[in-house]
């Protein structure tokens, strides 16, 4: 398979992951679209050097999360940009309005966490094992467990407020 075709397929297979990461790390639609594009660009840049040295999902999470950090640091100082008009609107139909409302609440709780916690909770919600979270984030497996325990407590306190 040609690298371009393989890359397009990889993005299509994982577009949901990229969407969720962009939503956690941004506050508005325009920034979300910008970050989405930047992640795809960074994935393309490292696609040829990836060569299956780690699991494909590990590579995607790592590049996407690191790009989100870089984006957060750069965003405030960046000038206006040209949008590619991604179809992010109308992700959920009217019958899903209840789900969308609950999701907004969920994102709101995640947004209140700091940048370290955001990455960890996102991977946990994605159903990644402690081992894989450790491989993506660089924390030890036991440290991941400890940190997630603390996040759980923090979320409980925040939700009660």
């Amino acid at each position: 398979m040609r690298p371009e075709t393989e890359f397009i397929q990889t993005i299509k297979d994982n577009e949901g992951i990229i969407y969720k990461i962009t939503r956690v790390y941004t506050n508005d639609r325009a920034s979300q679209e910008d970050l989405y594009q930047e992640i795809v660009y960074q994935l393309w840049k490292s696609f040829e050097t990836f060569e299956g040295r780690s699991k494909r999902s590990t590579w995607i999470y790592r590049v996407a999360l690191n790009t989100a950090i870089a984006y957060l640091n750069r965003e405030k100082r960046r000038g206006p940009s040209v949008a590619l008009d991604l179809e992010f609107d109308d992700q959920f139909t009217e019958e899903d309005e209840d789900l969308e409302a609950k999701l907004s609440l969920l994102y709101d709780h995640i947004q209140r966490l700091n940048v370290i916690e955001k990455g960890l909770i996102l991977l946990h919600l994605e159903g990644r094992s402690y081992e894989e979270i450790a491989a993506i984030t660089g924390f030890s497996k036991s440290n991941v467990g400890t940190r997630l325990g603390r996040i759980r407590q923090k979320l409980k306190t925040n939700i009660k407020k």
Partner: protein
Amino acid sequence: MELEEMKMLWQQMSQKLEQQRLVTDQIIIEMTQQKYSNRFNKLYFFESLGTVVCVAIAILILVNFRKLDTWYLVTCGAFVTAFLLVMPLLTLRSLQRIKRLSVSQFSYKEMLVRFEKSKHRVLLLQRGSLILSALLAVLILPVFQKIFKNEDLFQQDIELSLWISVGVMLLFLFFFARWGYRCYQSVTRSAEGILKELEE
């Protein structure tokens, strides 16, 4: 909402997203093209443009440096030239260092440590340059007065309007510097907090 409930909700959303198509082949191809990445280089472009302007002014002063014929004008000229040459280059260097960080090379933790450290360095640099900018704004006046009008501002009876202008400018710079310093303090504290947490 408990964590388990959050997890269920997340799974529900993931399933919905799997059924939908967000991007087409064409959009993915467009995203990978260099023309797209260029817009992310805009910041660097404007910083570079600022550096060019600063260097051009510094060259202008250097070319006319012999016109500065007293020790105090030479001191003012040397400070202004050094500031205009060194500060923008230091800023560009720190930006370049951030830009060079490879997103695929490091783990999330390493990336955060590197960014927070870089941010700390940039903030220190900007804090220093903010204070020196106030000095620059004042010292550039006698230098330009001498170069362009061949007048020694220190030896002249300075008009009241000029004193007022300098006073207003210094007052503005004072409030601007105070505001900037507070912003930097808060960002620096947050960066230090993240670094401390990462070390745990």
